[in-house]
């Protein structure tokens, strides 16, 4: 190992441990002792990670309250940052909260973190063309059964047993902490970006089934079957029509595919 490698590894250890060893490589200087000099870097590392994660996890910050700093420091100690973009250090926080004590005893925290992180990743996901509603008008009747909708690639569906969306909304709007509510049954949440705006909303079980089916590439007829399982055959088609109209309005669909119809994406044949 070279001298430079040794020095950098010693400094790394000094940065990450709670009780840094005495480093012979550091030069004593009159104006301040070595411990306080090293503390500038050690404190800076922790503060930077905290600040970056607090920005990404606004809802979690509001939900965790005074425990938030302790939570973030625990995560940083367990998971040193490995990504050049400090933001991406946050990618492992939901899984950490799900598994690490004492946080896993409060499952609402992991649920909250999942919504925060989905919002964060959708924010700067790749730009995608959106299918104009008018393009559907040209689909011939015989092509509909086999038609496959292509939802945007960044779209995410989450499931939570708590009112995590209320916390995120309150955090974004600077409102006071809402009361934590455990829902009667877990609820699905859709997170996506409409042009440049990140959006999220709760979705019913039937919409979740149809949208998840579309994400898997299922044909339009299969999506209708999924809605029939929830609503009965008579209501399946009107419900599908209403959902399709909403998905197009919200910019959730990027393109269409059908064996009897040219491949369409973002309003143009490819």
């Amino acid at each position, binding site marked *: 190992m*070279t*001298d*430079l*490698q040794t*020095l*950098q*590894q010693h*400094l*790394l250890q000094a*940065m*990450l441990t709670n009780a840094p060893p005495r480093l*012979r*490589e*550091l*030069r004593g*200087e*009159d*104006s*301040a002792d*070595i411990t*306080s*000099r*090293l503390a*500038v*870097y050690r404190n*800076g*590392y922790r503060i*930077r*990670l905290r600040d*970056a994660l607090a920005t990404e996890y606004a809802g979690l910050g509001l939900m965790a309250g005074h425990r938030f700093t302790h939570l973030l420091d625990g995560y940083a100690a367990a998971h*040193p*940052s*490995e*990504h*050049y*973009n*400090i933001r991406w*250090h946050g990618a492992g926080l939901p899984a950490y909260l799900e598994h690490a004590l004492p946080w896993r005893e409060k499952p609402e925290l992991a649920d909250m973190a999942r919504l925060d992180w989905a919002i964060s990743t959708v*924010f*700067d*996901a*790749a*730009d*995608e063309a959106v299918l104009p509603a008018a393009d559907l008008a040209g689909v011939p009747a015989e092509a509909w059964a086999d038609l496959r909708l292509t939802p945007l690639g960044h779209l995410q569906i989450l499931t939570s047993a708590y009112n995590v969306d209320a916390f995120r909304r309150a955090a974004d709007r600077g409102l006071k902490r809402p009361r934590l509510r455990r829902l009667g049954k877990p609820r699905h949440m859709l997170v996506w*970006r409409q042009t*440049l705006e990140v959006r999220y909303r709760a979705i019913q079980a039937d919409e979740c089934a149809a949208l998840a089916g579309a994400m898997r590439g299922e044909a339009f007829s299969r999506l209708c079957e999924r809605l029939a399982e929830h609503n009965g055959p008579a209501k399946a088609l009107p419900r599908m029509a209403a959902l399709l109209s909403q998905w197009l309005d919200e910019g959730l669909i990027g393109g269409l595919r059908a064996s009897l119809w040219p491949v369409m994406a973002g309003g143009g044949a490819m």
Partner: protein
Amino acid sequence: MNSESHTNQLPYLGYGLGLRVDHYEALLENPGNVEWLEIVSENYLIPGGRPLAWLERFRERFPLVMHGVSMSIGSTDPLDHGYLARLAGLARHIEPMWVSDHLCWTGVQGVNLHDLMPLPYTEEALAHVVDRVRRVQDILGRRILLENVSSYISFAQSQLTEWQFLAAVAERADCMILLDINNIHVSAHNHGFSALDYLDGIPPARVQQFHLAGHEHGERLLIDTHDAPIVDSVWDLYVEAVRRYGRVSTMIERDDHIPPLTELQAELDHARRLAAPLLREAA
């Protein structure tokens, strides 16, 4: 391509600012005396969304330069080719006037410390950095600028002064220098060297850009926080830098406690007023 071919001359851009979200709208509405913008490269190494949409608008209005914090040119870990490929991709897309980073290391053994860690000023470190700068310049297909960092520790094994080390890196690797005037002031205070000796030791032909910024007084050390107005002692050092290096593209870096744009525009005007008589004399 090899390092021999990076011979293009970089232009003079005048007086600029670091692009910050708080100023997006104000800068487009009333750029005033802001002649160019420096972006933090990592903020735009992303697939899409709002930051890149804003960047497109600024690209149309201002000359841009890319300033990174993650090249980790002094690390003993291998170069991060994934990072460099993304950096090269962004540079191809926005066509910056130049690309810069810091003379430091930011992590080792796969851990990122997200800080600008100083190097020991040894022949070993010099050879290591020079080799890596050459390789980065070949990957990017352009000369890069390296910035001097503020530091709070120094190393017993250092054989050179910081300015000797910086100058030697620039000469041997054929790269340019981004001289941060505030960082010189901060490190001079923290380590007890002469800031003027530092300026005298830097080859003028290598100086492509100045940074100006504010700092914080710790108990015994100055801390480079970029969260306050530029202080008189840094302005004085800026004058000395202009006296030595002449006309150099200058910008103000503010990363925290971001004031209204007009406050930074007033600081840019102050920089202009300080430099103007010296540049007239030199003309």
